[in-house]
């Protein structure tokens, strides 16, 4: 490991680390634009100049292009280097408009930060600036080319990293233009990352346009709930409205990026149709009243149909905290069935996948990126986990062959990331044994338990895509507590009552069920049909844990206070119902925000447990899961086998 001295601080870094990264390691951040850890160095923006005083190279160098070596003595504060950086940032700023006050990037703009850090404050250039016509890039991304400083990050991400072919760089010299051939929506399923990766406001999130500044956001480290991969995110909310989602770095999971589904699926949290109050037979009620009614109705049900006629149903989207309390609730309610999955097949396939995985063979997305041969078995990654496709592309870029196995692995997924894949019929045809780090990726949507079981015999590590952000946790609990699928339970004919906790149940399964109670934050079909509804918080409104597809438990933090968005607040919450809606939010003193009397699902379950005479605790994770209580939301997460101890 080379040792070098930067600004009189001794640094030791792994071989191959650039001097720019080495300086970052000891807290010295030198402005840079073209270099990005995920995209590598190109030495094009000329901004990261440092003075090399001793060692194999001397003088002013671009620190992103020089690998750290023994004996180097480097100064970042040297006058000549500082002067160069200030001149370079000045020329990068020559054409940049003074539109920060009306730019969505303002306040979260790397160009603002690095202009100041680079030592440029007063514009000397008085000439005309070059201007461009912008393009319409679809519903999600706003284009403003005048702000461009030609760092090429967007095109390097879009074409090289993500394999897109419809956004690029046109023209030459001072007329360089980043965009599409013609107006139109960006085709890559990873296009939203342009917003994060652009150091300034050329690409901004259209869905959150003109809504808030960085310092106004309610933010917290979170985990994406839109598939089982558990990509790390930073949701940003203001005035009780979830405005946008940004990627959060986790090298073991998603790396630097997230997919467009994860980034742009914010509207359900703000949906005016969300259940906001406990409901009894379609009538709003208080929590106590609703709990009483629920327990009374369950009592009635048991009298009428006997013990065991109730099913308690969780799901792959219910966080681990709630899932872990379900067995206790089912026990106290005398429920005959504890279900973590609705449909038979999904439950079986997930259970098979989870029992197949262990600490040695479960492949993370980092393992996939580092793999040298990949087989995708009966899986459409675009549907079951788009970020896995981006991981596959990185392996493919490094030379790994990509095999699409079986009829349920469409070629379109490979095309979406410009991967040249080979289609084969059976996994046995894949020469996995010839490679050092092969990975088999398998879906659970269109495969069979038998096919998943076969993966155990493949000479490769395995990554399974599961149905839901906590499907892994649900399957573990189902195995431990003898859970069955709701479909199987209903087929016995004994189920007369269902308590659905954030579970999506097809309407057919509810037919002939006398009592349906739904604890949910989404306005699902079950919620609409339910006799008793207890409203829960969305993942952005609570602390919780998801166990992702490779058994990695990750903590997400409460981002925002639950409640109806102030924008468009219904009339019933206005100060006076008979006056026209005020321009300003109504100033009425309340204990909680309108529509904000929601509880996390685990809290609802805990309240019920308490009423049923169970022990009340503030810690939903107990027993083996106790080790997850202090999980660091900003760490890499903990694999479930590591806590088995």
């Amino acid at each position, binding site marked *: 490991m080379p040792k070098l001295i930067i600004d009189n601080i001794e640094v030791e870094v792994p071989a191959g680390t650039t001097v720019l990264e080495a300086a970052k390691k000891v807290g010295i951040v030198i402005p840079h634009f073209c270099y990005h850890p995920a995209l590598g160095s190109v030495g094009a923006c000329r901004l990261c100049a440092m003075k090399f005083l001793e060692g194999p190279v001397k003088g002013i160098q671009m620190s992103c292009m020089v690998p750290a070596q023994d004996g180097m003595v480097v100064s970042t504060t040297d006058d000549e280097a500082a002067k160069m950086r200030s001149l370079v940032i000045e020329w990068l700023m020559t054409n940049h408009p003074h539109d920060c006050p009306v730019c969505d990037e303002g306040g979260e703009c790397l160009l603002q930060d690095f202009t100041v850090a680079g030592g440029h404050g007063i514009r000397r250039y008085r000439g005309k600036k070059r201007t461009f016509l912008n393009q319409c890039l679809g519903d999600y991304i706003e284009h403003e080319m005048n702000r461009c400083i030609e760092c090429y990050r967007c095109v390097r991400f879009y074409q090289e990293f993500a394999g897109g*072919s*419809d956004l690029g*760089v046109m023209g030459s010299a001072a007329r360089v233009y980043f965009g599409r*051939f013609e107006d139109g929506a960006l085709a890559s399923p990873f296009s939203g990352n342009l917003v994060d990766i652009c150091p300034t406001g050329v690409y901004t999130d259209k869905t959150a346009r003109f809504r808030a500044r960085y310092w106004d956001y309610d933010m917290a480290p979170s985990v994406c709930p839109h598939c089982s991969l558990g990509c790390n995110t930073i949701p940003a909310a203001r005035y009780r409205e979830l405005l946008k989602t940004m990627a959060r770095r986790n090298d073991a999971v998603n790396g630097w990026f997230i997919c467009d589904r994860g980034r742009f699926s914010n509207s359900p949290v703000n949906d005016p149709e969300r259940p906001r109050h406990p409901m009894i037979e379609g009538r709003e009620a208080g929590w106590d009243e609703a709990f009483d009614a629920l327990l009374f109705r369950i009592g009635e049900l048991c009298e009428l149909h006997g013990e065991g006629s109730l099913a308690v149903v969780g799901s792959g989207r219910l966080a681990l905290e709630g899932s872990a309390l379900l067995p206790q609730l089912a026990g106290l309610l005398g429920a005959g069935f504890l279900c973590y999955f609705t449909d038979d097949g999904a439950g079986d396939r997930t259970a098979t996948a989870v029992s197949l995985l262990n600490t040695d063979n479960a492949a993370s997305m980092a393992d996939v990126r580092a793999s040298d041969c990949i087989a995708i078995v009966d899986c459409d990654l675009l549907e079951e986990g788009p970020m896995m496709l981006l991981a596959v592309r990185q392996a493919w870029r490094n030379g790994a062959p990509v095999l699409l196995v079986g009829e349920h692995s469409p070629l379109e997924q490979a095309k979406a990331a410009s991967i040249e894949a080979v289609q084969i019929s059976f996994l046995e045809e894949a020469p996995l044994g010839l490679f050092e780090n092969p990975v088999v990726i398998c879906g659970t949507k269109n495969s069979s338990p038998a096919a998943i079981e076969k993966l155990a015999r493949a000479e490769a590590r395995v990554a399974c895509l599961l149905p839901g952000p906590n499907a892994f946790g649900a399957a573990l609990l189902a195995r431990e507590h003898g859970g069955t699928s709701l479909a199987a339970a209903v087929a016995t004919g004994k189920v007369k009552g269902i308590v659905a906790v954030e579970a999506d149940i097809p309407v057919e399964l509810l037919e002939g069920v006398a009592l349906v109670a739904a604890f949910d934050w989404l306005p699902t079909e079950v919620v609409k049909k339910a006799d008793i509804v207890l409203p829960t918080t969305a993942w952005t409104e609570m602390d919780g844990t998801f166990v992702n597809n490779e058994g990695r438990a990750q903590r997400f933090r409460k981002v925002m206070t639950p409640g109806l968005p102030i924008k468009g607040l219904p009339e019933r919450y206005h100060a006076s119902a008979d006056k026209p809606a005020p321009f300003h939010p109504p100033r009425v003193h309340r204990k909680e925000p309108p529509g904000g009397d929601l509880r996390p699902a685990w809290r609802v379950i805990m309240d019920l447990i308490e009423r049923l005479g169970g022990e009340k605790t503030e810690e939903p994770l107990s027993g083996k899961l106790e080790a997850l209580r202090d999980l660091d939301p900003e760490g890499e997460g903990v694999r479930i086998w590591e806590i088995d101890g």
Partner: protein
Amino acid sequence: MIPDTLREELKARIASAITTREAAVDVMKELQRHYGWLTDTAVHEAAELLGLSTLQVEELATFYEMIYRRPVGRRVIHVCDSISCWSVGCEEIMAYLQEKLGVEPGGTSADGMFTLIPCACLGNCGEGPTLMIGDTLYGRLTPERVDEILEKERKVL
């Protein structure tokens, strides 16, 4: 639409290249010769022939100054304004051409005959000031020489 003979010719040219991208410039030049300039239709045709996206063709087309993405006159005059020609008076030559043709740089003369475009270095530095029309390079330009060249190029057509 390009004629089938040209399409087959271009396909053969692409087939003989190691990577299709390598043949892109040749394909664009041939299409430009056919249409007069590289029309949007031509970009689509090039993309289809080369197996690239239209954007990828556009990236190349807009990089090269002798690929024209806008209509041009029947002859295109590229006047070098790079350092060597600048030091021996290319600005006067450019000004003379602008006056003579009645156009700004980038413009096409009213009779549709000439389009005037500045360019950066034609590799003829020893013979500056220099310009290029079609595949012919002209060096050591003077206003008189420019008159002769324009007469000659008019007659070519």
